[in-house]
C-alpha cells in the first residue's frame, strides 16, 4: 500500500516537473487572423524556431476572426488584410503596421490564350464581374486585344465563397476603378456577386480548381496560386495607363509608391497605385497589437519575431511569391509604431 502511494507521488512529481519545465520553455507567441499571409507567417515561424528556439503559433482564422481575437485579448497579435481605421485603433488602444505585401491576380480559362496574353482595363474587368459583359467576344474586350481571336463563349465568374482578404483586395480595386461597382456592390471580405453566372469556390484552391476546369471561366486568386497552378493570368492596365503583369517587382513598385504615414494606422490601400510598373491589385497585410499589452513579455517576444522576420525573412517571402516590406518602411515601423507599445 505504502509503496503504491509513493509510486503515485513520484509520478505526480514527475508530471509537475514536466509541466513546469514545459511552461519555462514555452515562450510561444500566439497570433491569429488573416489567411492571405498565412503561408509566409508559417514559414517565418518555422525558421524563427530553428534560429532562436522560440515558437510562434499562428492560426489563420480569417481577418475578422483575428480582430475579434485580439479584442478578446486571447492572442498577442491579430492579423488583418483590411486595415482598421485610425478611429477604431484609438478606441481600442491598438497599433497597426503592415508586415507583408502580396497581390491578387485575375485568371482565366480561355482557349488560345497563354498567360499574360489577354489585356483588360479596370473598368472592363469590373463590367465582366458585374455581368454587363457576359461573353468573351464582347467588342469592349476585343478593342483592348487587337489581332487576337476571342471565342464566342459565356463568361463564368468564379469568386471566393468564403470571406477572404483576397476578395477584399479585389473588390477594393474594382471599387476604385468602377463607379458602377462602387455604387451597386462595394468592397468587403465577401460581397453580393451580381453576375448571373457567378459560382463560388472555397479558398484560393477552390477558385483555382474551378477556373482551370470550367471553359470560359474568370476568377481571381492570390499570386502564389497563379504560379503553383500554372494559371492564365491577365495583364491589367494600371493607374499610369501601362499594361503590367503580376510579379514581385510590380508588387514592390506599388508598395514603393504608397505614402504609408499619410493614413493613421498605416492603413494605406495600395490598389490602383501610381507608378508605371505598379501592379494595380497589390495589398499589404496588417498586424494589430495593443499599446498596453496585458502580457508585456509576450508582446515583446512578438516584436522580436517581426524584427527578425523583417531582417531575415526577405528571401523566404520571395520564395513564396510575397514581397517583403522595403527597408525604409521597416525602419519607420520600428521607430514610430513599435515605440508606442509598452514594454
Amino acid at each position, binding site marked *: 500500500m505504502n509503496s503504491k502511494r509513493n509510486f503515485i507521488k513520484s509520478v505526480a512529481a514527475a508530471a509537475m516537473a514536466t509541466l513546469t519545465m514545459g511552461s519555462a520553455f514555452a515562450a510561444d507567441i500566439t497570433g491569429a487572423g488573416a489567411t492571405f499571409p498565412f503561408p509566409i507567417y508559417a514559414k517565418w515561424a518555422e525558421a524563427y524556431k530553428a534560429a532562436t528556439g522560440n515558437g510562434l503559433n499562428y492560426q489563420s482564422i480569417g481577418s*475578422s476572426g483575428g480582430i475579434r481575437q485580439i479584442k478578446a485579448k486571447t492572442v498577442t497579435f491579430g492579423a488583418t488584410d483590411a486595415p482598421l481605421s485610425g478611429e477604431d485603433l484609438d478606441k481600442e488602444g491598438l497599433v497597426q503596421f503592415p508586415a507583408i505585401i502580396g497581390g491578387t491576380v485575375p485568371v482565366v480559362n480561355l482557349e488560345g490564350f497563354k498567360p499574360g496574353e489577354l489585356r483588360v482595363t479596370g473598368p472592363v474587368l469590373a463590367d465582366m464581374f458585374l455581368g454587363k459583359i457576359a461573353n468573351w467576344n464582347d467588342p469592349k474586350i476585343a478593342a483592348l486585344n487587337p489581332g487576337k481571336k476571342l471565342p464566342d463563349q459565356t463568361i463564368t465568374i468564379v469568386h471566393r*465563397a468564403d470571406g477572404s482578404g483576397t476578395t477584399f483586395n479585389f473588390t477594393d480595386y474594382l471599387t476604385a476603378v468602377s463607379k458602377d461597382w462602387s455604387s451597386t456592390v462595394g468592397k468587403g471580405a465577401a*460581397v453580393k*456577386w451580381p453576375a448571373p453566372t457567378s459560382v463560388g469556390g472555397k479558398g484560393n484552391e477552390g477558385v483555382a480548381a474551378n477556373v482551370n476546369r470550367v471553359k470560359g471561366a474568370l476568377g481571381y486568386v492570390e499570386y502564389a496560386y497563379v504560379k503553383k497552378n500554372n494559371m492564365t493570368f491577365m495583364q491589367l492596365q494600371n493607374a499610369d495607363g501601362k499594361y503590367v503583369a503580376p510579379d514581385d517587382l510590380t508588387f514592390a513598385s506599388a508598395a514603393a509608391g504608397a505614402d504609408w504615414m499619410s493614413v493613421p494606422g498605416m492603413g494605406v490601400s495600395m490598389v490602383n497605385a501610381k507608378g508605371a510598373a505598379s501592379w494595380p491589385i497589390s495589398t499589404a497585410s496588417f498586424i494589430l497589437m495593443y499599446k498596453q499589452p496585458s502580457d508585456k513579455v509576450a508582446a515583446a517576444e512578438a516584436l522580436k519575431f517581426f524584427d527578425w522576420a523583417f531582417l531575415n525573412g526577405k528571401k523566404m517571402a520571395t520564395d513564396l511569391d510575397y514581397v517583403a516590406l522595403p527597408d525604409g518602411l521597416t525602419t519607420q515601423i520600428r521607430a514610430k509604431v513599435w515605440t508606442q507599445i509598452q514594454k
Partner: protein
Amino acid sequence: MSVGSMQSADGFLIFKKQGVSMSLESVMNSHHQLLQEPSQMVSSDMVAIAKKQRVQDFFFHRVTQAFSLLVLVALLGIIISLFVNAWPTFQKFGVHFLWHVEWDIINEDFGAAIAIVGTVASAGIALLISVPLAFGVAVFLTETCPVWLRRPLGTSIELLAAVPSIIYGMFGLFVFAPLFADHLQVPLQKILGGMPLVGFLFGGATNGMGILAAGIVLAFMVLPFVAAVMRDVFEITPPILRESAYGLGCTTWEVVRQVVLPYTQKGVVGGIMLGLGRALGETMAVTFVIGNANRMPTSLFSPGTSIASVLANEFGEAENLHFSTLFALGFLLFVITFVVLALAKMMILRAEKAKGN
C-alpha cells in the same frame, strides 16, 4: 441519430430482459439459501457487503444519471447560445427572415430562403436517389446474396460510410463535377431542356456545379448509412417468418414486401431519417460542389447554397449583424432537423397505431 439509438435501445431492452431474468434467478437461489439457513447467512459481514453494494449502486446510478443529464445540458446550452447570438437578426427581420430572398453582406440585408431551399432541395434529391439504391443493396445482401459475397460486400458498405466527408467533396469537385458536366448535364439539357413544364429544371450553365450535383454527391454519402441500417434491420426479421413465407410459395419480392418490410418498418424509416439528417447537415462535400452562390436557384443546374455551407464559408469573416445572421441560420438548421426527426417519429407512431399494437 435518435432513431439509430432507438434501434440500439431495442437491442438493449432485449439484453436487459435477459439480465433481469438471470439476476432474478440468482436472487431466487440466494433466497432459497436464506430460507434454509437464516441465522448463518445474516452475519455482520453480509450486512456490510450489502451496504457496500447499495452505496456502489447508488453512486453508479447517480454517475450514469449525471452523464445523461450532461447530454441534455449540452443540448439546451447549444439551443440557448444559438438563439441568444441569433437574436439581433430575428429582432431585425422577424418572421420575414424565413422567406426573404436576399443575402447582401455589405448592406446587411439578409434572408434565409436561399439557403433553406438549397439545403432542402439537395437533401431531398439525395434521398430520392439513395433510398431506392440502399433498399436494393439491403435486399440483395439479406435475401439473395451468395454467402461468400455477403461479408466482403457488407464490409465495403461500412467502409464507404467511414470515408470522411471532405474526401467526398474533393472527389465531387475534381472527379465527379467534370464528368457530370460533360456526360450528364449537357445531354440532359439537350433532351429535356426544351420540354414544357420540366424544361426549366434543366436550364442554365452546365459547369458541373449546382443543386443537382450536390444532391448526387450527397446521395453517395448517405447511401452507405441507409443501406447499412436497412441491412441490419432486415437481418433481425425472424427466419421462421421468412422461411414460412417462402414455404408458402412467395417470391423474394413478396417476402420482402409482405414480411420483412412490415416487420422492420421502424428501422427502415429510422435509417432513412439518419440519412436525411446527415444530408441536411453535411458541410464540406456540399460546399465543394453546390456552387456557393447566394442566389435563389432557378433550375437543378443552377448554383445555390446550403445552410451548412454558408456557415462554413462565412464565419471566418463575419461581423455584427452578419455574425448573428449566421447563428440564426444555424438555429434554423437545428429546427429543420428537429422537425424532420419529429415527423419521422410521428409517422412511426401512426403506422403502429394503424397496425393495432
